[in-house]
């Protein structure tokens, strides 16, 4: 089971700024270990964000995203008290969903 994400969502005006930190190895598949054996690729494939259950953003990610990625975006029309949930799915099929309340 992957570690939880850290999600902060703050409203300003008629939008909310969402900041997400994800805990993930994000192996590219190009690195080799000490014995010269390639380390298999292991990275997030898809990230989606939902506001009160309605999907507002999806992103397709690949091996070029850094380890422990940080993602920031705005959601128009999000108000304080709204629920933002973020889901990621990696190439091994592992997934994680975490939720935060807009402040």
């Amino acid at each position: 089971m992957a570690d939880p994400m850290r999600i902060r969502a703050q409203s300003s005006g008629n939008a909310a700024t969402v900041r997400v930190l994800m805990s993930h190895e994000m192996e590219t598949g190009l690195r080799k270990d000490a014995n010269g054996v390639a380390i298999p690729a292991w990275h997030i494939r898809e990230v989606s964000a939902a506001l009160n259950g309605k999907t507002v953003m999806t992103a397709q990610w690949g091996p070029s995203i850094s380890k422990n990625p940080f993602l920031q975006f705005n959601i128009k029309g999000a108000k304080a008290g709204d629920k933002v949930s973020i889901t990621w799915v990696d190439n091994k099929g592992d997934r994680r969903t975490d939720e935060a309340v807009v402040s």
Partner: protein
Amino acid sequence: MQASVLKTGTAAAIAAALGLGLAAASALGQKSTADGIAEYRAMLADGNPAELFEARGEALWKEPRGPKNASLERCDLGLGPGVVKGAWVQLPRWFPDTKRVQDLESRLLTCMETLQGIAPEEVTKAPFGKGEQKSMEALAAWISAESRGQRMNLPQAHPEEKRMYALGQKAFYFRGGPMDFSCATCHGESGKRIRLQDLPDLRTNPGDGIGFAAWPAYRVSSGELWTMQRRLNDCYRQQRFPYPGYASDVTIALGVFMGVNAKGAESVAPSLKR
């Protein structure tokens, strides 16, 4: 003749224009060295992945683990059993129960052994970033974060703490290895840098959130959280010294030396490094 004068004139004008351009470029260059890095750090600090380690560390502190199936919540970090807030800025310090001056990591080794029954070798023999070392990194991240914003204030009342300071000072100025380096070679003067990294002057208080007051830290380049033990281990590697033992007296003594010198510096740990 006239044409030639005109040519010289034009050339001078071009040179002047070029000179201006160069001056502007070098001014920009100066800005992008120090300020650019500061800007980059500020951008990343907003989402410092050390937070992920902090969360893991807090969970580990409260989780019953080891052969004794106990949590670390009764661990005494110097301010009494279970007190975490403010403990970090007073470490390393003397502990009467072990009769030793201990830094955070050596103290955690004691707590893990006495409370949880985890053998210290499980940590000290593990490579950095693997096995029980991972637990240590997360715990160090959380415990140091609990003192974020407080000022370094290491005690120096006990004779052993004074002795460790003197030992740390000796180790700091001790030159050796194939390059005849000491810690002071890089950290014994202000305003030095390696490549683009400013080197803190560790003989005095280098300032808020710099040097001893900045570690543990998340290293962006490797995606790892480095504790002070790992930082020192790598300093010794860079000096081409033999690796110091994990939580050995020399590493603790250097911690006392740096920590006491940094008295009054605001701790920003766990910080963010290149």
